[in-house]
């Protein structure tokens, strides 16, 4: 399955989630290709921190939309592909919208993240038209709350707004909370299931996210 973690706004947590999705899926025995499509190259830098850790993970860095679209033809060699698109309206983000099966949209329950979803919604609509002309299936668009609040109604209100803003966006039940372990693990290029000391709650969140993203179940609210 080809998935892209994408949002037109930076700081939504795309790279951290892409890292956790790709690495956790690899730990489950899948052959995963991780694609850093952000010019900043943070995902690739994080993976480099893994050093000789087993299993090794195939990774590539594309900063050109046409090159990414072309190289996605290599995806058949892998069980899964995880693309981390930079937080801008970039050619790579647009190429990904054409090439992947699943778009995972992380957003924080904050106004600026939600406002930016309007831009992403417009791009998704254009991409869907091209996919339709290609005879491809529609994008499966999954929205996940990242750095979610532990209390209050902002989480629910944010997800409600997201589903209204991007037609077809499915609200995932799993929410990723703000936890130090995500940041600490990512600094070493690790997914939280690999990280010591073990943060059970973070591991449960990521395992649940991987379950729903890499299956065809529509575990929605």
């Amino acid at each position, binding site marked *: 399955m080809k998935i892209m973690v994408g949002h037109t706004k930076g700081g939504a947590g795309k790279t951290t989630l892409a890292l956790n999705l790709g690495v956790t899926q690899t730990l489950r025995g899948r052959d995963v290709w991780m694609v850093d499509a952000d010019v900043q190259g943070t995902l690739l830098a994080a993976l480099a921190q893994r050093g000789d850790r087993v299993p090794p993970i195939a990774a590539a860095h594309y900063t050109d939309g046409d090159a990414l679209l072309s190289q996605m033809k290599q995806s058949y060699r892998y069980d899964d592909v995880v693309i981390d698109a930079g937080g801008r309206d970039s050619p790579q983000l647009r190429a990904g919208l054409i090439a992947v099966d699943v778009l995972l949209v992380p957003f924080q329950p904050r106004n600026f993240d939600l406002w930016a979803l309007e831009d992403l919604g417009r791009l998704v609509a254009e991409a869907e038209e*091209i996919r339709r002309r290609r005879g491809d299936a529609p994008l499966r668009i999954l929205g996940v709350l990242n750095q979610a609040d532990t209390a209050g109604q902002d989480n629910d209100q944010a997800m409600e707004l997201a589903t209204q803003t991007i037609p077809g966006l499915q609200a995932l039940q799993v929410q990723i909370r703000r936890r130090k372990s995500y940041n600490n693990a990512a600094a070493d290029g690790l997914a939280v299931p690999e990280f010591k000391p073990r943060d059970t709650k973070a591991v449960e969140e990521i395992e649940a996210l991987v379950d729903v993203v890499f299956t065809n179940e529509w575990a929605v609210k």
Partner: protein
Amino acid sequence: MTIKGRVKADQSAEVPGARDFVSGATDGSKPTARGGVMRGKREQITHTMPPEMLVRLDRRAKALGITRAAYINLALSKALESGV
């Protein structure tokens, strides 16, 4: 041996509209008819000049409170209008 020209990196052209969609990103850049690069609504060029002229240019632009690029464009438009 056969000498062949380089294949243009145009794989996405197989999908109608895909290439335009991908290159239409606000964070991307499209080559112009001259093969140049657009930055927003402007075409980017590379220009060199004597260092001492650059010093004078920057001094004058600063005095006017405008950027170096703005001063160059201002001076150039006046020069072009006057038929230089």
